[in-house]
């Protein structure tokens, strides 16, 4: 392409990490008897029971779409919860974007979000690429602590502040781990094979081709976001490509874990946060080949600082059994109360589902806002049916009117926090809370809305989504 071509670029980015961060040394301690495990330094982001690839992609997208309303939405993940239910369509509804936007799900390997990003940059229209991962891994596997959960997003526009100046792709059926519908958890292959051949045969050639396409050298790269197939491979990749810039993808792996398909765009956000105007950034996604993209920072890119802040906004925990439970590695016997039937009827979901996942309430003819909408408004002086205007509540500031930590009701991660939430615009909703920190919740607390799993019907493998109140501010992790 060369530096003078390719005006399309990235206008905004988003990065989301779950609240909980496992202290990896706790896993090492728990597994000490076995000699299994993996790296024991740093933290491993751990999704709440009510988070999945979709919810984390949605949270990242909220950051990235605050200034741009995309007309194309792409969802990228290797751990999508559904086989036949478009996640991009759900994401669109969660973000309350126009239904005539074009949507697509991409998957197949952990490079998919980078591939989609490249397609968007070479295509047309304001495009959101959103990615989320919550990959199942068996306890004892090194991946269990090396991988993390999270979401990332980027919006591509004609005048995005990070302009694409070069790229290269390489497709190769390269098997470095085994994972399939039959065996969804990863089965690792010989590390020495991967370390040697992935760099030599896949990553380095693609990076070199991209550098040539952009007309720049390895020395021109100010920041890198190069995904490592395995932890610790950056040194070899650097040596093979001559790139000596800081690799934000490696930093992300240490701080949060390898986020799979969500990793490249999150690392790109960190690179953009660190970059100065005029800097050149190299992004490389690996998996069944490699895509390498080279950007030049020519303007502002929103959301990068928030992504960096997410690295240290969390709650460290060292309860390895809780980690095993949250990651689905052990299936605790929660007793009879957990047997509650949560079957979702498709007909009901069709009638009300969009208002639920979009958190759409209604404003009556006198301006009162309520959730959910009703034929006759809840307003005390309402005297019959009134038309209602859609009002989205997801981004409206709110405070708690009442609260409790319920220890009787079943939840996969006790206690079950819930209460009455008062929104600034007048609406109020009795709802579940999530992401409780060490202080819990109390009356008067400011809360922010998070898209989460509402019900999980394990019998049929189905889940519904709604919004939950979370602390408006997350705790800062101590170094």
């Amino acid at each position, binding site marked *: 392409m060369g530096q003078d071509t390719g005006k399309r670029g990235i206008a905004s980015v988003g990065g989301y990490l779950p609240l909980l961060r496992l202290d990896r040394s706790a896993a090492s301690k728990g597994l000490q008897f076995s000699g299994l495990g993996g790296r024991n330094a740093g933290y491993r982001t751990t999704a709440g029971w009510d988070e999945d690839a979709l919810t984390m992609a949605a949270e990242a997208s909220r950051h990235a779409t605050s200034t741009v309303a995309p007309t194309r939405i792409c969802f990228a993940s290797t751990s999508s919860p559904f086989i036949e239910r478009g996640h991009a369509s759900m994401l669109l509804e969660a973000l309350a974007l126009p239904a005539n936007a074009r949507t697509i799900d991409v998957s197949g390997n952990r490079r998919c979000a980078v591939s989609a990003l490249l397609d968007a940059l070479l295509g047309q229209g304001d495009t959101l690429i959103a990615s989320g991962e919550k990959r199942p891994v068996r306890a004892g596997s090194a991946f269990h602590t090396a991988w993390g959960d999270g979401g990332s997003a980027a919006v591509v526009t004609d005048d995005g502040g990070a302009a694409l100046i070069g790229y290269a792709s390489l497709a190769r059926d390269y098997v470095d781990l085994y994972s399939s519908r039959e065996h969804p958890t990863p089965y690792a292959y010989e590390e020495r094979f991967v370390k040697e051949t992935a760099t030599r045969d896949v990553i380095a050639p693609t990076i070199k081709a991209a550098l040539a396409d952009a007309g720049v050298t390895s020395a021109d790269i100010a920041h890198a976001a190069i995904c490592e197939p395995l932890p610790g491979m950056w040194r070899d990749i650097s040596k093979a490509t001559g790139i000596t810039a800081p690799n934000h993808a490696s930093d992300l792996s240490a701080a949060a874990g390898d986020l799979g398909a969500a990793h490249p765009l999150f690392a790109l956000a960190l690179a953009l946060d660190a970059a100065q105007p005029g800097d050149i950034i190299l992004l490389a996604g690996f998996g069944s080949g490699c895509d390498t993209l080279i950007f030049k920072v020519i303007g502002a890119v929103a959301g990068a600082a928030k992504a960096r802040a997410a690295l240290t906004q969390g709650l460290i925990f060292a309860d390895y059994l809780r980690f095993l439970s949250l990651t689905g590695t052990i299936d605790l016997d929660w007793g009879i109360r957990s047997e509650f039937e949560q079957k979702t009827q498709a007909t009901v979901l069709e009638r009300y589902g969009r208002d639920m996942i979009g958190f759409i309430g209604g404003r009556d003819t006198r301006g009162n806002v309520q959730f959910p909408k009703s034929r006759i408004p809840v307003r005390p002086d309402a005297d019959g049916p009134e038309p209602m205007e859609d009002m989205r509540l997801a981004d409206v500031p709110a405070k708690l009117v009442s609260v409790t930590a319920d220890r009787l009701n079943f939840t996969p991660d006790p206690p*079950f926090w819930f209460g009455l939430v008062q929104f600034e615009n007048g609406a109020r909703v009795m709802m579940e809370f999530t992401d409780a920190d060490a202080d819990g919740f109390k009356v008067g607390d400011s809360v922010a809305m998070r898209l989460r799993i509402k019900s999980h019907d394990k019998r049929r493998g189905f889940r519904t989504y709604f919004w939950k109140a979370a602390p408006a501010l997350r705790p800062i992790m101590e170094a």
Partner: protein
Amino acid sequence: MASGIKDRVAIIGMGCTVFGELWNKGPEDLIVEAFEEALADAGIARGHINAAWVGNALDDINIGNSALPLAHALRLKAIPVSRVENMCATGTEALRAATYAVAAGAVDFAVALGVEKLKDTGYGGLPLRTKGLANDLWMPYGSAPGTFAQLAGAYTARHGASSEDLKRAMAHVSWKSHQNGALNAKAHLRKAVDMETILNAPMIANPLGLFDCCGVSDGAACAIVTTPEIAKGLGIANPVTVKAIQLSASHGWEASYHEWDGSSIRNTQEAAKRAYAEAGISAHDLSMTEVHDCFSVTELVTMEDLGLSAEGSAIFDILDGRYDHDGAMPCQTDGGLKCFGHPVGASGLRMAYEVYSQLLGRAGDRQLANVDFGLTHNLGGQPANSVAAVSILGRLN
């Protein structure tokens, strides 16, 4: 203009089973026991019964739907039998239906029977149930203690009360009910418990500990009603009469409109206001109350909602012993939901049974000195979305 039902209906017979974890009794046993006691008390033949209402709140976990379980258990011969359900107000709802039928002149003798068989679920507490298919998409599945625990923080926030004072007052509520329940041979929990044990009990839903929660019980209670004139004809010169029965249901105001602060129950206030007006008395004319102490904090708030304590002062009235058995306004003389137990559909009629017994001087060790009017109060649902029922009973003359 409606004139109300004051003194238009007499209760001539009541029955109530032992409440508790009745592993060896099924719904039929409970229904028959409560009814036979009421029938014997009324002194009429079973063939005189013209109509019956059965109150049962959780039909899906045991008894089954419709009124047929009652008709079958009592072998009621082709008379109108109906089932009513209004959550924890179900028992009073059954009494209301039977009372209205008599007051309307539609029947001479009507039966109200509440029954619940909860202890066949395999676990403690009430079962988690659907809130409706659309509501399940967003409403939290909070437990009963979880929903009522919400009152506590909202109450202290509104009145500037300390959490410690509230906790002590809640503990006193439970302590008092255990004292009373120990005197009641039909109560589920008959053991007095000291304050320290209550205060240090395991947490169920902050700040409600184990002893802040009522028992989940099996049981049934029954009333037979007729007109005062017929009662006199049966030789009951001064029968117990219904002075008022009122109900108030949420329409979404609390949970969906921005005015309610979560610290009180408007439906209790509304139902009580109308009940006092219907009975022609004020709160201060009452001799006793049986209120819906599903959780200790509920009883505390209810004392204010019924007008028995000034707003913000229930904590201190409770700690001063105002609602103890020997206090100025005894509450839960039979142990209440807390200790008599809470077979949901039966509870309203169980409360009426205690007031009836006190009015007739039959309460044994629990008997109060002077009882002119007794109030019963049920609260179904949760504070943010409730049905409140308030009835007042007294003597005809």
